[in-house]
């Protein structure tokens, strides 16, 4: 070891340190959170393909959990609100609604079409029985445009689809105010045409036969 001149050791040290630095910068650059964004739509736009059921669910679960954390840290003081329009109050929607109800969302409004899947009726009954904050409304006609508004901040829009299939959808974090207002106004207008359903009514609701 004594044969190695000092300046070689120095150069080696410089190389090691500079390569460490370069790798660090490289990781920072590559793994930088770089979402798709557009000022007319929102701060973060995520496209989900029709087969990414799990991804869609996790994305919405995370939004709900974020709100809960913000609320428990005192960053949000107002009531947490979830607005949902779907074709039918199916298993996927029930999961989201349950998750929201379990995470301090105090106002949950669901507007759905006149029919449900037959096997979902008892599940909806228990859901409405357990969570009093959940308000369930039905329309005389199945809505074609489905969306969810998370506490007037984030938006989740589904591609139009039939009740038997799932299609792609888009999630927007920190949605543009103008765009969100269009959806809010539409939601309120549609709500005036919907009639509330009690848990007893749900058991007699029309359903799709398999």
């Amino acid at each position: 070891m004594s044969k190695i001149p000092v300046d070689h050791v120095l150069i080696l040290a410089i190389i090691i340190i500079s390569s460490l630095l370069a790798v660090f910068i490289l990781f920072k650059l590559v793994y930088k959170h770089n979402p798709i964004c557009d000022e007319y739509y929102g701060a973060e736009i995520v496209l989900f393909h029709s087969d990414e059921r799990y991804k869609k669910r996790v994305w919405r679960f995370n939004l709900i959990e974020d709100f809960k954390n913000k609320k428990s840290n005192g960053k949000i003081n107002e009531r947490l609100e979830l607005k949902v329009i779907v074709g039918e109050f199916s298993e996927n929607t029930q999961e989201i609604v349950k998750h929201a109800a379990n995470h301090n969302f105090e106002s949950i409004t669901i507007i759905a079409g006149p029919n449900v899947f037959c096997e979902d009726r008892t599940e909806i009954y228990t859901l409405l029985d357990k969570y009093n904050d959940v308000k369930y409304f039905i329309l005389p006609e199945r809505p074609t445009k489905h969306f969810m508004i998370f506490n007037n901040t984030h938006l989740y829009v589904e591609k139009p689809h039939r009740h038997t299939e799932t299609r792609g959808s888009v999630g927007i974090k920190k949605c543009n105010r103008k765009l969100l207002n269009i959806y809010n106004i539409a939601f309120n207008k549609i709500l005036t045409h919907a009639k509330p359903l009690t848990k007893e009514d749900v058991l007699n609701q029309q359903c799709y036969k398999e």
Partner: protein
Amino acid sequence: MDLTHLIPEFLVFSLAGSSLSIAAYSAFRDKNDDQKLLLVVASCFTFAFLVLFTLTFLTQDNLTGLQYLFASIFYFLIFMAVLGIMGFIIRRLIVDQRSKDDELDSAIDIINSSKDGLDSFINLLESQKK
């Protein structure tokens, strides 16, 4: 130690590194940031290879005319191949960016078509009421 003894090992290392990272890159099914990192690592290896390869050209001497010609052809071919690999890497990075742009476009299409249909659905409900 003489530098010329080290060059073959370095060449093998850098070549193996670049091909391994490209192989690992193609093993990923869905695209994510890890894939991008592997592409960057592959380009580092190919750069290292090019630098060493240039060095071997500079250190060689005592070649006859014909030997020199053949060596030059060899260098030309290898440079072409390595630059081709780098072109591939850059193209992949561009394609990733483009698919991200396409994703934004189709997301905006979905939002617009959903937004435009809201009013007509409300009108439908109103006309039914009457």
